[in-house]
């Protein structure tokens, strides 16, 4: 039922990855790849959003632009066409940076910091989730939200694969919306299958949703990570050969670390988890196996992302506050990991 534990497996190797130069000066809150090009953004607690270009031929990354919030930036995302960067921060504001005109504008406002931001291309709207217990939809030209949705608790994590939106809140609330029908009321309100605070959520598609020229793209479930080193794989509809389960990860000896990030591979549908323990792993949920594990990079990994074709895995090493305020300075760096095909390719299930 469970995956093999990282600590017991011998396949851990130290990642030797490229460090992005001129990284942020404070912890990274999010990394996000453009859906159309190898540009990526890094949002940081130092109030800046930095935009880099990853050059595939030279294997280097160069800074392209940066803009700032008044206070730490907690999230960032790209528009579908890759022309705009959106970000939300502790200044309760959502901002939009236009790549072509290099202009920054405010697009959203909440009563509390904005923890999550997404661009919903089907409606050309920006979705923001905040600790003020609301979701708001913005059309970027108006200063008032198109729609405000009340949540049962503070928004901690959200992800969507149109039309399904999954929002993870404090107190383990999980709300599932169908954006094509009614974005106002959740189709399902439930309590997280994990017993501890929700840390990250990532939706996934059905198997064929990841193949090329996919017609049948159904969001079939979501992965949810908690502060107690555990990931739940939840299907919306339980079927014969795929039912929800959870597994432990990011634990070393008796220390249990938070699962900080879950990213699904855009073409294989396998996924990564990264934790406060400074390790990241690739998993296959269908065969319930760990595909690849890496040893700790020496500090928490706060955010991860794949690029649009899944050849680059970007991850941020920075302090995640899991031990509260600590005196010694923590290293902050963003790494680009060249993804090996065999590390992320789904494997046939193990015989038992």
């Amino acid at each position, binding site marked *: 039922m469970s995956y093999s534990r990282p600590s017991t497996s011998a396949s851990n190797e130290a990642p030797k990855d490229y460090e992005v130069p001129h990284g942020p000066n404070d912890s990274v*809150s999010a990394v996000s790849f453009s859906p159309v090009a190898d540009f990526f953004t890094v949002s940081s*607690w130092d109030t800046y959003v930095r935009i880099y270009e990853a050059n595939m031929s030279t294997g280097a990354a160069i800074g392209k632009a940066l803009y700032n919030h*008044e*206070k*730490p930036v*907690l999230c960032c995302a790209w528009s579908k066409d890759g022309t705009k960067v959106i970000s939300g921060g*502790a*200044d*309760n*504001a959502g901002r939009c940076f236009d790549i072509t005109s290099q202009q920054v504008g*405010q697009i959203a*406002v909440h009563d509390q*910091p904005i*923890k999550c931001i997404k661009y919903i291309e089907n409606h050309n709207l920006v979705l923001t989730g905040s*600790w003020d217990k609301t979701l708001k939809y913005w059309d970027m030209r108006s*200063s008032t939200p198109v729609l405000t949705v009340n949540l*049962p*608790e*503070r928004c*901690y994590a959200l992800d969507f694969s149109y039309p399904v939106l999954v929002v993870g809140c*404090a*107190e*383990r*609330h999980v709300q599932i919306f169908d954006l094509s029908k009614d974005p106002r009321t959740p189709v399902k309100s*439930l*309590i997280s*299958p994990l*017993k*501890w*605070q929700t*840390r990250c959520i990532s939706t996934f598609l059905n198997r064929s949703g990841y193949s090329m020229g996919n017609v049948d793209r159904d969001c079939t479930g979501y992965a949810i990570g908690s*502060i*107690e080193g555990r990931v739940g794989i*939840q299907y919306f509809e339980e079927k014969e050969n795929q*039912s*929800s*389960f*959870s597994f432990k990860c990011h634990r070393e000896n*008796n*220390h*249990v*670390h*938070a699962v900080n990030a879950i990213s699904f591979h855009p073409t294989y549908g396998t996924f990564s988890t990264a934790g*406060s*323990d400074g390790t990241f792993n690739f998993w296959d949920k269908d065969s319930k196996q760990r595909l690849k594990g890496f040893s700790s990079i020496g500090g928490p990994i706060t955010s991860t992302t794949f690029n649009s074709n899944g050849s680059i895995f970007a991850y941020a090493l920075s302090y*995640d*506050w*899991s*031990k*509260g*305020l600590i005196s010694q300075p923590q290293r902050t760096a963003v790494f680009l990991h060249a993804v090996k095909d065999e590390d992320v390719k789904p494997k046939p299930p193990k015989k038992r």
Partner: protein
Amino acid sequence: MGKKKNKKVVRPWCWYCERDFEDEKVLIQHQKAKHFKCPHCNKKLNTAGGMVVHVAQVHKETIDTVPNALKGRESTDVEIFGMEGIPQADMIAHMHALETDQPTKKIKTEEPMELSSEEIKKQLAQHQAMMQNSSTTGQPFSYSSYSTTQQNMPSLMPHQYSQFYQRPGVNSGQTYSPVTPYRPNQIPGQSLPVIPSQPWRPSVSGVSQPLYGQIQPATTGQSAIYPSRPANSVASASQIYPQVPHATVSGMSPSGQHSYTAYTGASATNTTITQYQETAPTSTVPSVGDTMTSNETTTNIIQSNTQQTAQKTVPKVVLVYSDNEVSMEEKRAELEKYRYNEDQFRQQSSMF
């Protein structure tokens, strides 16, 4: 001193079938093989609750009896793991059986070291003296003896707790005990002489009965829990007691209070998908209810014993970040350096 000498008296024994074993490891093996084995696929689970959940989830069937158990001990609701969770009454009964039946023979053959028959006789004499004493005074269930035995319980609880819940962080000073909110000792200026130090358990004496509802008006669920307790009725306490977690749940439900009560309640109501139902708090609580027949010596032995084994078998799991109510980012954002100034915010939003 007495504790140390006596701790070897009790051999680990199985509550389900009254067999005793060389050490607790063997006992646990026995329980897994005999009582916690799934009848459908022979998977060995850790607890009866675990088996119930497993059978329900994997085989979609319900199971309500523990296989190979004695009559009256087939309940799957009692959480037994090794020596943990054995109802006090049964524990004492077992002790009695040991002491009265063939104490010397049994212990000589099976526990040849360290314990002389003299000591056992002495202990027996002590025990009998106490029993006699209490019966001559006509107060077999006197409050004084009751309270002294109870006083030892809090030290036992955390171990029991972590044992059953396998939940890290509990040992690190956090009180997640569902009973915590009801401690009568919190009442200022209220003297409860009968139960000087049992913070985890409401008083059983009629003296304190009218207090409930008066002094804790903040949580309305409270008065419902203790609606009208018959004075001086000891048995009623153990009847009422098991209801506590449920009452907590109904007390908190839709309003989403952020109190501890709310949280513990929520964790107790893991509904459909969760795989951890074996941890439902209800089961451990009632077992504490009926200790009145005991004398102090016996309970001490039991406790030192269970405590010891608990320490041995429970790997101390530590959550690196264990605050289930507030996320790391929220805490971090509270820091002066990162905090957003409200005035600034108003200015800005008016401009916007």
